[in-house]
């Protein structure tokens, strides 16, 4: 079994194609949509957690690439600017997946980007705007 959070960028011509349906039907993959921004006649963006047998997973990814979908692993997309972060911790109760956690000893805030679902709730509530999104 393989499970990965990925970011898909659809070109404009793909926006009306049932891509996720294909992933399920043809490759037997499970999906969980974490975020989607799809507007007709514009580029689409979807953040998915995709899981299934390794072989099917790889074939699914190949299929997406062959359609012209750009794929990025999610962890690259939300980052923390450590120079701006003051380790205050006001983001911690806002984060729904405990990707932002205070270390009880050092009282510094850790960002675990493997837990991040890119909901972006932390981005605007950070007083120093230290959380950055790059899609």
């Amino acid at each position, binding site marked *: 079994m393989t499970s990965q959070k990925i970011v898909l960028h659809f070109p404009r011509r793909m926006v009306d194609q049932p891509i996720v349906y294909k992933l399920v039907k043809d490759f037997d993959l499970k999906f969980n949509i974490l975020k989607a921004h799809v507007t007709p006649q514009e580029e689409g963006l979807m953040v998915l957690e995709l899981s299934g047998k390794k072989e099917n997973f790889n074939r699914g990814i190949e299929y997406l690439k062959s359609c012209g979908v750009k794929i990025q692993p999610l962890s690259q997309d939300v980052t923390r600017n450590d120079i701006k972060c003051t*380790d205050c911790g006001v983001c911690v109760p806002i984060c729904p997946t405990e990707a932002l956690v205070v270390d009880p000893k050092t009282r510094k805030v850790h960002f675990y980007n493997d837990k991040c679902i890119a909901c972006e709730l932390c981005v605007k509530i950070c007083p120093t705007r230290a959380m950055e999104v790059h899609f």
Partner: protein
Amino acid sequence: MRIMRTIKQINDKIKKGEVVALTAEEVIELVAKKGAKKAAEEVDVVTTGTFGPMCSSGAYFNIGHSKPKIKLGGGTCTLNDVLVYAGFAAVDIYLGATAVPDDDPRNKVYPGEFKYGGGHVINEIVAGKDIRLVATTYGTDCYPRRKLETLVNIRDLNEAVLFNMRNCYQNYNVAVNLSDKSIHTYMGTLKPNLGNANYCSAGQLSPLLKDPYYRTIGIGTKIFLGGGIGYVAWQGTQHNPVAPRGENGIPKSPAGTIAVIGDLKQMKPEWLVGTSMLGYGVSLIVGMGVPIPVLDEQAIKFAAISDEEIYAQIVDYSSSYPQGISGSLGEVNYAQLKSGKIAVQGKQVATGNLSSYSKAREISEELKSWIKKGDFLLSEPVAPLPGAESGYAFKPLKERPII
């Protein structure tokens, strides 16, 4: 109580490199291990620290005279498009931390983002960046010029002085939201139905909580301010020493405050940081640390009061706070707040701090190292702050119709 040492004696030890300085955190451990009497004999100075948004902050500048001369007083002046107050003599201006540019939409598109304002300009000035100054005014016989557009830099200004009229609150509220929609406050975003609880204090490291009756923190006390040296100038606005206190003397709600002043030219940008509070506005995070001389055993007893013994009130910011209705949903201590969850009305609520404890710790360590190296001597206060028995209190506005 027996006086064990004077500030002069402590300074003599600092000059000889023999001073014993500990942070408030270290003193808590020491007193727990050896008792207050023994600890008071050993320790000369306790250092404290805090690093949180403090809105009533600002800085004044004298920009020097242009040729021909201009009188900004009575005109308007901006720094990087942020309006400053110019109602003084010809070239003195004051920049407030919460000022925003005229073209910022504020909360017209709610919640406003407030990406840039006075706090950010102060940070950039301290960082040595060039700043755009634009002014228009009326001409006079002695000051004929009406327009001025120029870059300015802190190194060229005659004076650049941080002067904050209220900083370093002695304790603060824990903010929650009882309503059914998200609200955006100076205490951060509060999710509906007790979705989170935000607090804002360094607790056991916070300067005024370590000297709860202002026995040594007074007017003239020398402090760590914005990474440099500053002084307590006065009691802060809204100073409220009569706030209810626990048996240990610690106020259980926002109480004392201090006004502070210091030369901005020797401060550092990492300790004066502009902030954007979603739906609220711009502010300035100020790094501050105050040394507390251990003049007697009582001083160390106060300095050793820990998070478990410092209580704060839980306040509803959806209704009670904005309507000015006093009342608390209960009280919790800072150890509970730091555990990450508190109970409010039977619900477990996740907590977040607006004030960086790890930075407060860094400040207390930095101030300790200055004292140990002999770079920082303590000062005697020249006058006390109004104390708990003074009757000095924070009053609401009495509105009266203008006839």
